[in-house]
């Protein structure tokens, strides 16, 4: 019966960890790869490198949907809802955008997105302004490859040392820090 008990314990812990991980990735932040070069040179600056950029997407902006011009966002495509695109917000609701032929007003509750690499980018110039409800998160920083990002690594190292120092001050035994 020992093996069965052990299996049950491991399953319970994995299930709990999985659920907490899903919640964090839906509510807090998640890491997604950037594919394609519609956002060069901001992401994927080299066209034929083997490594994709991985970016940190934060989800706190979905509480009240307040964005600023210039934010890079992840959104569901209006025509294929399972695909996710990463583009930059160029127009907020109520603003006027000049496309190739005429001037368009962005309606209420919508935004105009464009990629940085205008030559090869499928964006609002093709499918029009997108409703703000389709946005799934805002990109804050690049986390991989590490030579393109030093702030996040610095922050994590500092946070680790601060937590260690605080726990030493409170006389918490060091091995109980890991017993979450």
């Amino acid at each position, binding site marked *: 019966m020992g093996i069965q008990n052990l299996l049950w314990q491991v399953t319970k812990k994995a299930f709990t960890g999985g659920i907490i991980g899903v919640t964090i990735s839906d509510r807090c932040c998640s890491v997604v790869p950037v594919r394609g070069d519609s956002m060069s040179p901001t992401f994927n600056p080299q066209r034929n490198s083997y490594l994709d950029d991985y970016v940190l997407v934060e989800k706190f902006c979905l509480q009240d949907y307040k964005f600023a011009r210039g934010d890079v966002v992840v959104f569901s495509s209006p025509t294929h809802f399972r695909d996710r695109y990463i583009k930059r917000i160029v127009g907020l609701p109520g603003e006027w955008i000049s496309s190739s032929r005429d001037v368009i007003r962005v309606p209420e*509750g919508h935004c105009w997105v464009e990629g940085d690499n205008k030559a090869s980018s499928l964006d609002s110039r093709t499918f029009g302004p997108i409703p703000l409800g389709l946005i799934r998160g805002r990109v804050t920083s690049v986390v991989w490859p590490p030579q393109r990002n030093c702030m996040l690594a610095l922050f994590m190292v500092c946070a680790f040392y601060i937590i260690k120092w605080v726990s030493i001050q409170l006389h918490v035994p060091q091995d109980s820090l890991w017993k979450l």
Partner: protein
Amino acid sequence: MGSSSSFWNVAYRQAMKSGVFVAKVYSFLHVTTTYLAFPAFAFGPSMIPTLHPSGNVVLAERISTRSRKLSRGDVIVLQSPEDPNKIPIKRVIGLEGDCVSFVVDPEKNDESRTVVVPKGHVWVQGDYTQNSRDSRIFGPLPYGLIRGRVLWRVCICLTLYSLISRIKSVFFFCILFGNQYGLVSNDI
């Protein structure tokens, strides 16, 4: 390890335990309401006679919207394309590729228009068409804005007071029931 049991030590341990329990409950609730089903409080005149205008508690499920198994006639919970903070409830009239005809402005004249619903969109209308902001005003709705499909109505609440008292009675029933069967315990 057991020598220094100062106040801060004990407090830290208690805080960690309760924190982990709260995190578990919150994540369980989040996963259930985002991927399985969620309750919603519906009010407003746009779905008369299906829903009461003063207030109904309905149960909406998310499994069929994730796998694209919507059909014409389903009542769905969606996110308004005019304001992402508003969550109206409407009925699906046309899927992608359908031709939908509607009267543009019923108060002015009887002029009607026919629209083909584009790929990846649905056409929604309220049941009480005289007082409903739906696809006749904001156009076809992208599939990504659909939140869930209404399964059934749990109860009608004519006032906010009756809704609050109903929630209280359900809460106390759960506590009593859980205590009797040992589901609510102090040992976490």
